[in-house]
């Protein structure tokens, strides 16, 4: 199949960007979306033009590196699918595709389709962990966890940290991302000890990084490649309110 691409090109964070038109010819339906871009890039290099820069790594939907908005939808038209797992058979001959980077105040563009997601790192560093040292812990079976709780924790822990939730949110909110980590750890007895402190510092870090607030659009859930539910945002809110009432904040 032949496609017309309109790809966001931007040389650097301070440079203006624009959509540039390319033709993608002889695209096989078996190609992944990134393989289609590989083919376009090979052509650009041969034509002595600069290839399109885009983030990718595992190409099997788990590392969270790939990040493109396709025709206005983060990760493209197929539900619960990252760009690298999106196959060209979902498009048809003659289609026009608009390919853009994640757009959010907290994610400045580095080049073309690559954005800086280090704001998410700082949210994690603020408190997205259990403060345990290596060694000196109890036997793994000393902590019993109800199967349903472990399953719910896992539902949240599946987050791959791609940032599609932020890109899809009209407010550029990282609530689903933060809620996934807060929810995962708050479901487990090991994580309960610091739960109140954690939800406060992570929320604070999130707001400081320039992520917006949640106003219940649920766009995040719709684009999440791992199907993480907005129920975790509700849980984050409950944890947050509980913490405001009960926590003694030492610092």
């Amino acid at each position, binding site marked *: 199949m032949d496609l017309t691409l309109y790809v966001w090109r931007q*040389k650097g964070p301070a440079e203006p960007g624009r959509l540039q038109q390319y033709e993608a010819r002889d695209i*096989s*339906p*078996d*190609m992944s979306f*990134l*393989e*289609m871009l*590989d083919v376009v890039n*090979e052509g650009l*290099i*041969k034509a002595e033009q*600069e*290839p399109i*820069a885009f983030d990718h*790594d*595992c*190409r*099997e939907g*788990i*590392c969270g*590196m790939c990040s493109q908005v396709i025709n206005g939808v983060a990760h493209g038209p197929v539900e619960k*699918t990252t760009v690298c*797992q999106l*196959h060209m*058979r979902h498009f048809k001959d003659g289609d026009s595709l608009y390919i853009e980077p994640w757009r959010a105040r907290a994610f400045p563009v*580095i*080049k073309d389709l690559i954005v800086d997601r*280090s704001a*998410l*790192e700082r949210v*994690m*560093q603020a408190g*997205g*962990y*259990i403060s*345990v040292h*290596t*060694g000196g*812990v*109890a*036997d*793994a*079976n000393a*902590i019993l*966890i109800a*199967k349903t709780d*472990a*399953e719910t*924790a*896992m539902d949240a*822990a*599946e987050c*791959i*940290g791609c940032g599609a939730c932020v890109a899809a949110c009209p407010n550029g909110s990282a609530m689903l991302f933060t809620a996934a980590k807060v929810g*995962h750890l708050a*479901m*487990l007895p*090991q*994580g309960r000890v610091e739960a109140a402190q954690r939800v406060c510092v992570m929320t604070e870090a999130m707001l400081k990084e320039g992520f917006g607030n949640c106003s219940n659009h649920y766009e995040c859930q719709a684009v999440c490649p791992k199907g993480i539910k907005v129920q975790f945002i509700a849980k984050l809110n409950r944890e947050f309110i509980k913490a405001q009432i009960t926590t003694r904040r030492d610092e």
Partner: protein
Amino acid sequence: MILDGKSPSGPLAEKWEKHRHEMKLVNPANKRRYRIIVVGTGLAGASAAATLGELGYNVEAFCYQDSPRRGHSIAAQGGINAAKNYPNDGDSIYRLFHDTIKGGDFRAREANVYRLAEVSNSIIDQCVAQGVPFARDYAGYLGNRSFGGAQVSRTFYARGQTGQQLLLGAYAALCRQIKAGSVRLHPRTEMLDLVVVEGEAKGITVRDMVTGQIRSYAGDAVCLCTGGYSNVFYLSTNAAGSNVTATYRAYKRGAFFANPCFTQIHPTCIPVTGEHQSKLTLMSESLRNDGRVWVPRAKGDKRPPGEIPESERDYYLERKYPSYGNLAPRDISSRAAKEVCDEGRGVGASGRGVYLDFGDAIARLGQDRIQERYGNLFDMYEKITAENAYRQPMRIYPAPHYAMGGLWVDYNLQSTLPGLFVLGEANFSDHGANRLGASALMQGLADGYFIIPYTIAHYLAQTVPGKVTTDHAEFSKSLEEVDGRTKKLLSLKGRRTVNELHRELGRVMWEHVGMARSEESLGKALKLIPQMRAEFWEDVRVPGSGAELNQELEKAGRVADFLEFGELMARDALFRRESCGGHFRVEYQMADGEARRDDENFCYVAAWQYKGVDQEPVLHKESLVFQHVPLSTRSYK
């Protein structure tokens, strides 16, 4: 040179404890005076950096991705082994040790493997304490499942994403240390050289992948946790960015490379669809528990699978290995698939595939049960191939997956260069010639959480902290060399793209240094690789400049190293005139086609020393002594 693995003396079960007691320690107040460089943030790197930071060392952690959470350990599906014996089915540290030595076809060091089995239990405890949501039963206890090469259930798992959950645990510990200020993180930064001062590893030279700046970092020790080199085959289950550069640069600076020909080809991957293919996706091996592998009896039979009657199907694994059947080990299953495809009986458009058929299992257990067991895998398969495996058999084909070979290390995980430690898949130490399923995660975390914190102290305690700074002449020399190479790549302006040349290298490696190797095929590879290398350095086209984010430049540097490393692999494979584990030489097989190991002549680790790009490397040997598991032939019949 005869290499000494430095296994401690004394009874096997007491070696590690005794050794820990004998090693020197660094005083708590002195730890912050030492700077440790950790390259790579997969399971080994993240766990090492976090733990060393907790202990009070100054850690500089580097990764080429935008976040440490994206190391390729994240893609491991199946699980992690440990000798907990929770199911009460007869497991023990000794049994895990025994299975690993045997599974590795007697090409690993006994003392290392025993220690790995010994610390395996602490890993599970640690991960649970971090909040890793392992699978549990209704009483709230941890669940286990069985895996290839073992007769006990010792594998812990978190759905089909065990690697992800373990890495997120280590990443969380790392985040905590970054916040505490003990670890400084350098994402989107790629190591391009190792700096050696007076014979000891004292720093690295890196390229900032966003600005293009090339700079050096000095440290009192360097830990390489940079994973495996399966991308030498171009198509593999590794991430697109996985590469050999860090370990290969260390090799060029004097560290020995051990057993590079020991690579694992995984039998159950989704077949290639065409020239555009950029990676191969693995389907968990657990599928072979219920799927039956077959191809048509007749060559070139292109009928759809449903139209081929039972009598015209060849269930070749069940036929050749009646007792293990479809669960034969990875190397044996992979080779058998290649054989039937070479005979012209392969399926799918390309003819490079075999069927994995769930028809019988669905008829016996019902579709619901199969869906419950493998639903996510069937979904993934459908996503990629647009085929419904409940209605027609899956098509699978082997793909390069894991590198058992790596930089040579002693019992302390120290390479032949003092101060250079190598962890996880990047070293050669624990899996011999073949790795068992669910053992890679175990090794990465064992090295990072529980081994390096002790052994690195022993080295550091004998050095003066901060003795070498980046003012040393070796650092400017390294910067110049890296800069020169980058400029050269950019100046070639040839006609071939990096991908094209990488794809060609991959084809040669797969064809001649792949699953079945011979003196003839390896000779061919040794002739072709230098030609391809010459072509690369004459005709590659790397667009753009060095002073910006330039993904083609990144790839070009990695492929340039693969073009040298591939030759080393072929040379090692040619030299090892025996078949063992993942290394199969067609000249050395039994009458029935099984691998013929030669313990008399090859019961050693082959460690290669670099002598120059177009010169033959020098071979050094570490003899392997088996005092506890008697040398025997693996049989899965």
